[in-house]
């Protein structure tokens, strides 16, 4: 190999090595600069744009001093990514009006599709109910989890068709987008149109929590004991029969222990 060619190759290698060295120094200087002159955030705060809207999800990973004393284990609501269109408008703590029972209604939204209560079958019509996975939408044969936190919901279906699909989704999305520009009359008209398929009288607490329950708990996979319990939830009776139910002190452990 001629001497000049050899020289130019070694020069090139030297130059490339020098460039690499410069890059290496720059990266290190950048890291050092970041370390020295930036303030590392103790807890990175997610950008607001990436946060789910508040009405959708109330995270329990609240910052310290967030006024919630009891430490909770996980995000309260988990199917934000795949939430039904109803919740986009109403939020997942959607029951507001009935001050006495709204918390209980909201509790049920974690394991019942909206249509389970808000669709009433017409006379002679028979609806079926199954558990469907919140994320995949697949039928769930075996539930994992406890206390209603299964990542799945009971959904009504008929003729192998899930009934929790919103019939006028495009209109609903349009409404949410432009609702501030509508007059009150227009709002009422569109709301009426959107809610056409929803029954004015939802399935009541007593219709499910009674002996002849609207839902067949055994078919849904509940154990015999649990089915029995769900068929006689006392709290429904208390809420319906008493305006105020005073907790009996005869079962108060302090009283029992003579304190």
């Amino acid at each position, binding site marked *: 190999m001629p001497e000049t060619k050899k020289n130019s190759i070694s020069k090139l290698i*030297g*130059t490339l090595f020098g460039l690499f060295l*410069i890059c290496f120094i720059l990266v290190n*200087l950048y890291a050092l600069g970041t*370390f020295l*002159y930036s*303030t*590392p*955030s*103790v*807890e990175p705060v997610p950008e607001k744009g990436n946060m789910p809207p*508040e009405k959708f999800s*109330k995270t329990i990973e609240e*910052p*310290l*001093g967030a*006024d*919630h*004393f*009891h*430490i*909770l*284990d996980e995000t*309260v*609501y988990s199917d934000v990514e795949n939430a039904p269109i109803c919740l986009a408008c109403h939020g997942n*703590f959607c*029951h*507001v*009006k009935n001050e006495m*029972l709204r*918390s*209980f209604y*909201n*509790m*049920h*939204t*974690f394991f019942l599709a909206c249509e389970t209560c808000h669709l009433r079958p017409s006379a002679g019509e028979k609806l079926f109910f199954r558990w469907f996975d919140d994320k995949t939408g697949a039928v769930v044969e075996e*539930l*994992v*989890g*406890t*206390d*209603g*936190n299964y990542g799945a919901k009971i959904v009504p279906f008929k003729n192998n068709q899930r009934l929790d699909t919103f019939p006028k989704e495009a209109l609903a999305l349009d409404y949410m987008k432009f609702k501030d520009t509508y007059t009150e009359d227009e709002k009422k008209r569109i709301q009426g149109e959107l809610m056409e398929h929803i029954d004015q009288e939802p399935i009541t607490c007593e219709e499910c929590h009674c002996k002849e329950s609207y839902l067949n708990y055994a078919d849904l*996979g509940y*154990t015999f*004991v*649990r089915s029995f*319990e769900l068929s006689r939830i*006392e*709290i429904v009776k208390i*809420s319906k029969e008493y305006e*105020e*139910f*005073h*907790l009996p002190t005869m*079962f*108060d*452990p*302090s009283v029992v222990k003579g304190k």
Partner: protein
Amino acid sequence: MLREIPRVLPIHRVRTLTGFRALRYVLPAILLFLFFGNAEVQAVDEENCLFCHKYRGLSYISNQEDQEEPFRLLYVTEDLYLNSPHGNLKCSDCHTDIDKFPHGEIKQVDCLIVCHIDEPSSGLPFSHQRVEEHLSRSSHSRYDAEGNLKEHQDDYPDCITCHQDPLYRELAFLNENMPGLEQETIQRCSICHEEQAFMRKFYSHFTSRMQKLREPREIIEMCGSCHGDTEMMKRHGLSNLLKSYEETMHGKSVAFGDERSAECTDCHVLPGQSIHDIKSMDDPQSASYTDNIFKTCSYIDCHPDAKMNLAGYKAHVVLTAEKNPIEFYVCCFFVLLTLGAFIPLMIFTVLDMARNIFPNASLQNLFKRS
């Protein structure tokens, strides 16, 4: 099948003992007992509040727009609650005004009430009143020395501003070297004591108190929720001290996860003082008072060999020309020095490289050609 807590109704036993007639009277009582005194969770939730409060969705958003706290999360995680120092208390020990269903408007819990439990060393009823006494003497009290409410009183912390129900923390630093420590210790306790739950609770309480209940990063986050709020600090004539702390070596090592680096409470509480006694740096009793800084820094766990001149070191300086002009201008000088030396050097190096790659390149020729 669903995984539910099995609860067996003891109906057959009632029949055997009392007969069918008596069952008509006894059964409602049993059902009530199952509701209010659920056997499965009785040991931990005697009042059976978790009958409802174990459900994650048990919450509401108030429809009254003027409500200070429109979202009410009513869910409690049983396991975490039990693993907290309050885990042996009944709900009604703190939520004292709940006696009916629906509960209606309930008062905020008063942490200073006298509990039903007895303080074991004195046998007297337990209360957090002493903590309040410390806090009332500190700079975090919303009352001044004359007992008058300070300006911007809402900015001052109350118990839950800083405290969630803490969880017992494992002795991580010992467990690394002594795996199985907890089991072995409890095993030794069980030679004399009987109840596993008691032993575990006692062990957790004691070992948690051998270390801070929170990681340094959490403490910085907690204090920073106020002291990192520039607007709030301005209202009180202070600066954003979180920012200046994070720029220190202590702040940076804590941010990178160091457990042993100093966080707020290490330097702002004198050895032997209550953590609730933090005082203004102008107060001679303050850990950050000029005459006390040496004592604070040379604490045995931190810099025991430190010399007196360490007291002259300003721990986290707010770098502004108004507050600390010398430090501010020294910092500016070093930044300029670094950049002034580095930028020309880099330009020179890059140009030299370019010449090596293109030895015959000439801008003059390039312009001439064009």
